[in-house]
């Protein structure tokens, strides 16, 4: 009797472990950060890439109904593939797209925009990457869709897709 209970408990223990691992197999094993919603974007001051003028982020965001801030860099390969989609968006809508040039050399950034086109209404620079961290970015490229009170409506980690673009157009219109 005692032996039976012992074997039964061992069997139960292993079935318990088996079910846990079996359920675990189905779960995706990559980490996706929680979406940050309904938070305000931190104010920052930065210089423009072409004109070298200083801009406050609040002034840029307040003057338009919606603003898309896109963090990009000329050395980042996904940004290159994303660029065509951004160009498409800027042609289709009159959405205010602001670029934030992350840790880039000025010449390379200008060359990149000359080659692939400039979808940005303003292109702010972030030479040491501190602004991107203070915005809560996880990597390049990354995009924030904001309303005129600088509230984050949507945050896209990684390159924008054409699905994202149609979603952005839907929200902004």
């Amino acid at each position: 009797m005692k032996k039976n209970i012992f074997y039964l408990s061992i069997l139960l223990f292993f079935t318990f472990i088996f079910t846990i691992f079996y359920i675990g197999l189905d779960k995706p094993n990559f980490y996706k950060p929680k979406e940050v919603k309904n938070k305000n974007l931190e104010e920052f001051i930065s210089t423009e890439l072409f004109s070298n003028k200083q801009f406050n982020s609040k002034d840029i965001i307040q003057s338009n109904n919606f603003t898309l801030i896109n963090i990009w860099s000329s050395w980042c390969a996904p940004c290159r593939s994303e660029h065509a989609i951004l160009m498409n968006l800027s042609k289709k809508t009159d959405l205010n797209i602001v670029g934030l040039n992350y840790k880039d050399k000025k010449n390379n950034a200008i060359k990149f925009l000359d080659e692939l086109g400039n979808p940005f209404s303003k292109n702010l620079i972030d030479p040491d990457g501190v602004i991107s961290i203070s915005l809560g970015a996880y990597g390049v490229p990354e995009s924030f869709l904001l309303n005129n009170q600088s509230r984050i409506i949507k945050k896209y980690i990684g390159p924008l897709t054409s699905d994202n673009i149609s979603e952005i157009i839907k929200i902004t219109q």
Partner: protein
Amino acid sequence: MTRPIKYILLILFFILTFQKPSIANNISFEVDKISKNLRCLICQGQSVYDSQSDFALSMKKLIKNKLEDGKSEKQIYLYLKNKYGEWIVYDPEFNKKKFNIMDISIDFIYFWRPINL
């Protein structure tokens, strides 16, 4: 020079060389300390201190800026938690989820014992 004086000088030399150079590099020490407790955004197996990724370097700079502004260690953790969530720190707060995990394991050991005997 007599022998004891030699020894005392040698000991003094070692004491002085192995002291923390705390006065001059106070801020960089604090940056190291804080960044060791933060998870890197890109390479999640490493701390921000260990990582050489661009975002980790930027984060170290941000921590340095905050320290120079007179922010305390706790305030910096709170600021980053607010941006990136609880996940960014290696030692998350004690909440219900954490309690449940610990509780299950303790219960398991406790109830397993009498059956085995």
